[in-house]
């Protein structure tokens, strides 16, 4: 476990993280939560329950969709994956995010 303090997720960034995770391929809910936690070196804390409303919001917007399938130990599960629209959105969101972080960085450490 990491010794650094964990950071609560900013409003809306969870959507971006989900899109980013799904760019690597379809995954079920638990896997998405694990991936977000793992790739952020356990810094980002996702209260795993909040994942589900976010997933459904994304489905509603048409950015992701899901298929029913069997998981590793033959459990039935929903596998979420990006739609083409979601793929585009990921680019938009990423750009937006980078702009935001650059701007904040400039504010915090003026050149």
């Amino acid at each position: 476990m990491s010794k650094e303090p964990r950071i609560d997720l900013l409003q809306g960034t969870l959507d971006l993280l989900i899109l980013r995770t799904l760019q690597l391929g379809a995954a079920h809910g638990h896997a998405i939560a694990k991936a977000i936690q793992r790739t952020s070196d356990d810094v980002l804390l996702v209260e795993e329950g909040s994942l589900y409303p976010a997933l459904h919001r994304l489905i509603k917007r048409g950015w992701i969709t899901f298929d029913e399938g069997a998981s590793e130990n033959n459990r039935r599960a929903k596998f979420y994956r990006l739609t083409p629209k979601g793929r585009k959105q990921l680019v938009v969101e990423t750009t937006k995010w980078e702009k935001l972080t650059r701007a904040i960085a400039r504010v915090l450490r003026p050149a």
Partner: protein
Amino acid sequence: MTRRHPLDGLEREIRAHIERETEENVERGMTSAEARRLALIKFGNVALTREDTRAVWASRWLDQLRQDVRFAFRSYARTPVFTSVAVLTLALGIGANTAIFSILNGLLLRPLPVREPAQLVLVTDDEAAPRARVWNFPIWDQLRQTSQHFEAVAAWSFIRFNLSSGGETQLVEGLWATGSFFETLGVPAIVGRTFSDLDDQRGGGPDGPVAVISYGYWQRQYGGAADAIGRAVQLNTVPFTIVGVTPSDFFGPEVGRTFDFIVPLATERLIRPSDSAVDSCCTNFLSVIARLTTEQSLDSAVARLRTAQPEIREVTLRPWAAEAGQAAIDRYLESPFALVPAANGFSNLRLRYERPLLIVAVVVALVLLVACVNIASLFLARAVARRHELSVRLAVGGSRWRLTRQLLTESLLLSGVGAGIGLLFAGYGSAFLTRQLSTSTSTVFLDVSIDGRVLAFTVAVTGLTALLFGTAPALRAVRAGSTDALKEHGRATTEQAHGGLTDLLVVVQVTLSVVLVVAAGLFGRSFASLKYRELGFQPDQILVVYIDAQTVMVEPSQRVPLYERALDAVLELPGVTEAAISHVTPVGGGGFTPAVEITGDQRPGREASITLPANGEVFGNLISPRWFRTFGIPLVAGRHFTDRDRRGAQRVAIVNEMFARSFLGGDNPIGRIITLYPNTPRALSPIEIVGVVADAVYTSARDPVPPTWYLPIAQFDIPGFPFSATRLSVQATAGSPVLLTDRVETAIASVNPQLALTFRALPDQLHASLTQERLMAQLAGFFGSLALLLAGLGLYGVTAYTISRRRTEIAIRMALGAAPRAVMGRALARISLLIGVAIVVGAGISLWASRFAAGLIHGLTPRDPATLVGAALVLAVVGVLAGWLPARRATRIDPVAVLREG
């Protein structure tokens, strides 16, 4: 696509998620309990997650609605004048409709607030005309004895009780009711008890005379205190004990009336010992209601009643029936009983006001329609102004349905807010209207509270209204909001294609307004013709005193002398010019119509005698000598009655001119002989006609003056005629006659303090007698003006809008040298044409609809041409004015400025 909804299996998905986490924790070496605990902590609130996830989908529709509503509010806030005019118009329109409907609901639709009202039937004798038939006591007695056909039968009669023990009356509404009344209706007491056959005994039951009071009286008089039970109260000087209170929603057996006291029918003998209707063979005063058993049909009940009928009729034959002839007896025996459903109660008020109210309902519906048309044209103009916004929204992918929905939401919001305010109006309006129906002599009570039915009506009207004024503009706006609107530079140089619809709206609006203005004119003129009618007497200075001697211990034969002494005392008073007593007073209610025979024409070739039956076409009155002078009715020929025209002297009569015209062909009636009650043992004859007076209104200003005869009250000595009450008319020298009240009361009390007195100024009675016409005139006038105002506003709006859209065209014309007058003429020509068409159509509809007002219009024909022409003129003036104002502005356009804008 039958794709599964993302929410399906959410439960399983969450469970699987937690299980996976638990498994991973176990793999890390935790105990299974610890592993599960941590997994749950990490997941967070399961229930909340489920809710939030569902909310994502549930809120979609709501979100859009909220969005639409918020957007609608914003767009209305941008046009506050338009919005407030529209909302106020709708509030008035919907409010008026709700108010009238709640009155109709109270009068026609609401079932009586009793147990199983559908089982109640009213005993009458004519199914075709279900009037409130009243029966005499012997018939009721027979019906009761043969009542095994029914589950129960009951009877009642309305009466006003006097709480004071002498002098000026303090009247309360009351009912005599049989002991079976409460059980038959299924009305319990909420405090104390009701009464039963045990109490309905001559002289009172074990508790003496008892009374049940209404909830309203209980609250008003006793503040709802429980100790009201057991209190003593004097009704017409007879002591009663209050034993119970009826439920708050029980207003009595008749819609339109209410009661304060209900007392057993048998106590009637205590209250009027020498004039008892219960003891009389032939006084019709009881309404009879029956409750059918659950398995009984109306037809079978009628059949059973008809089999009992011969016996009932036989037993109740009047003692003097033999003199009326066999034909009359047979008619009586064979006249059938009938039963009419009484679930909604029965009501004289209903008979009187049903048609006027339905007419008012149509009027307010038309006003709402005018309002809808008005708002529709405003919306249309607004929609065109918003075309740019709408086409942008369509262009960026907004769906047409979504946009239509947005626009309809806006309409619904407008009419919803209007309806909310309208409901407030309606509450006040219906209460105000029912108060207007009440007069000093009859209190009208109607339950007009807003119940489920009224609310459903209002919601339906609101929805319909929104659709009416919202649909066409919304569809048009969305259609017009196509891409070419984007290209168009927001301004038009030529008349738009939407002209057709706008024109239609203008025509509809003006047409409806014509109809409403005609209605207002008819009812207004009808009322005016009654109000300013030549009555034939001078009402202004007259105070009428109803003197009731029923509670005075005086022999009926000594009552007239008692009244005469009261009259003499009043004549002595300062400020009294004239005074007289009479059996009936003009427009005071009631009529006196015995059969009359005229004889004494000895000339050859003439009929020796004419008999006028007691059918209500010839009216009579019994008066004291100065009566005609008191009322200002001039003597035309012969002489007045004098104090010498008393019992024992030659019987004399005075007739009016109409009497002479109707029956004597205009011959001089003086010297002719009349007989009252001819061919009966109580025939009064010979009576010599000694004078002729001018015609004067008798029962009502609505009716033509009837042929009338007058007899000296002192000579009218038919045995058994009760004279239980009389009317003393006092003419004041100056000032309001009401100011005499105290002095007159003291003077009469000095003669006999027990006489019960009720004071009414004759002008007030006249006012009250025209309630219905006044109300119709006021309502029709109000709504007619409202329609006119709306039509004017609508026309103004449409013209102004059309002209503003054509500014460029007008500017070009003017730049090319068109005279301002010609420009204005063009603008006006079109609107004038539309108004002309509308007036013609409206006049046609008015002519057709006038048939429904027949019988409600007095003094003119419902197709009165002057009213029609007047209405057309009013509409023409309003229309042209509404068109001219904006058109004049058009001529002030500065062509250079306008064209530069382009």
